[in-house]
């Protein structure tokens, strides 16, 4: 093919290279290089990584963040699946477009504003405590905010919609007659769910899980605004290194560790399910 040398080819290729090399490839190589350096010292060292493993607060936060991210992903699946099924298979099609649009609004409004909303709802003088106290059920506010509970609620809220949408898009193509046939042959709801609906929507579940996991593990706002002093999140450690203590090398090591663990987990999910990465985006 001679066409690849045509000017039009280069007209398309050049901006793409200017995007991918200086903004994706080189910065991440830079990140790796910087993580092996220490301020005011020549050559490479693994000091930053040693620091990570020697300080309990760092690696414990890291382990906790990964474990919570896996937990929130599972929780999001449990919450999301019935909603996705309802919107595609149960509700009358008349309302389905409207309800689907409702799902998108919190996404487009943005995480910060919705997290702020939860802060107002859960606070000591928030809606829930105000309501419970005014009906006399409790006489001092329940500690709903600034703990792991509020943090997980916020993480779930901001990520669950990204689980629902990919599952909906696979369920849409599931032929109702498969379910009808199974039902006619005497299968219970649970059997239909387990043997037909879930296997069929697996690609959507995998995509949703990857997106949710990435969003949660890389999130900052929910842990920072809704979490308590003890609900440290690994991204907060990275922020601190870059924006408070200005130890960019240590921060780079943390960043690289986060990137490594999240890529590894995504890779395992993709390998186990045999799905392609590009499917995740669609």
């Amino acid at each position, binding site marked *: 093919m001679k066409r*690849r040398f045509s000017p039009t080819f280069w007209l398309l290729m050049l901006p793409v290279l200017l995007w*991918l090399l200086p*903004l994706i490839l080189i910065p*991440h190589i830079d990140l790796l290089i910087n993580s092996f350096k220490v301020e005011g010292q020549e050559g490479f060292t693994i000091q930053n990584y040693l620091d990570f493993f020697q300080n309990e607060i760092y690696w414990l936060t890291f382990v906790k963040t990964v474990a919570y991210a896996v937990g929130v992903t599972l929780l999001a699946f449990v919450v999301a699946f019935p909603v996705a099924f*309802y919107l595609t298979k*149960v509700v009358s099609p008349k309302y389905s477009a409207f309800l689907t649009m409702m799902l998108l609004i919190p996404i487009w409004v*943005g995480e910060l504003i919705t997290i702020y909303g939860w802060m107002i709802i859960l606070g000591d003088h928030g809606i829930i405590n105000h309501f419970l106290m005014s009906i006399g059920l409790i006489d001092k506010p329940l500690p709903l905010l600034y703990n792991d509970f509020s943090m997980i609620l916020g993480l779930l809220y901001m990520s669950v919609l990204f689980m629902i949408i990919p599952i909906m898009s696979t369920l849409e193509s599931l032929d109702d007659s498969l379910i009808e046939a199974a039902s006619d042959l005497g299968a219970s709801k649970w059997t239909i769910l387990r043997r037909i609906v879930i296997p069929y929507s697996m690609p959507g579940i995998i995509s949703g899980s*990857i997106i949710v996991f990435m969003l949660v593990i890389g999130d900052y706002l929910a842990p920072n605004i809704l979490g308590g002093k003890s609900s440290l999140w690994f*991204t907060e450690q990275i922020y601190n290194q870059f924006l408070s203590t200005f130890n960019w090398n240590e921060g780079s090591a943390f960043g690289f560790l986060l990137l490594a663990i999240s890529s590894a987990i995504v890779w395992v999910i993709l390998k186990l399910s045999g799905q392609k990465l590009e499917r995740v985006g669609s």
Partner: protein
Amino acid sequence: MIRSLPNSALYKNGYRLYIALFFLFLVLPLLVISILAFNDSNFISLPWKGFTLDWFFANTDERTGLFHDEDLLQSIWISLLTGVAMASLSLAVGTAAALLFVQEKFRGKGFLYFLAIAPLIIPGVILGISILLSSSFVAGAIEKATGWDPEFLSPGFWLVVLGQFSFGATYVLLIVSARLKKFDPILEEAALSLRATRLEAIRYVTLPFLKPALISGFAVTFLISFSNFNTTVFLVGSDPTLPIELFSRIKFSSTPVLNAVSFLIVAVISAIAFVTLWINRKRR
């Protein structure tokens, strides 16, 4: 279980209750924010002390409404500019990438494509810090070599645009590719056989076909930019975008003016959503 099958009343109502609770969970924060934007109180909490528009229009020592809050207005303006710049750049490059990856064959395509969709699985924080690292490295090197300080590479407006564009183009690529795969290449071949150049074929045949995807690509990236925090926070300079400004106020000095600006955004987004819904319904 599905529309066409009979269900027990218990199952049906239980399921409906769950869905109702879920949608309550979904709208509750938006609703609460919006209502408290009109509360005649200096604190963002209940009790309800009556209706007021102070948090939009007041300009007294005690209360500064949104439309007199210079810093907030400025940050909204910066966010709009950032969004337009980032979405335009993402649209141009993402579309070029889609044409390249869907229609062309070349060596190293697999690797480049991997780089192009990698931002889907790179946390925004990581993109932010790695772009900050290399931009400050490059800026330092240029200044050392030439004595000229390339301002657009230090934290500020253009670095935010570049940082957000690094993943914005990925979304455009995916949206445009999806439509481009439905494109019948015979149309373009017809244009070429009628002696159009390849560029003319793209301009007059392919791009018009892609138009709906281009519009949604622009809208999506604009909205992503407008609400982005994780990447932006590392690249921002002395003029913050709206999420950065809101975040520091939430942390340090919150008054119901934050609810006023949030309400405005919720209202605009909801209006756009329902107009889109209405247009789609009419078209059908």
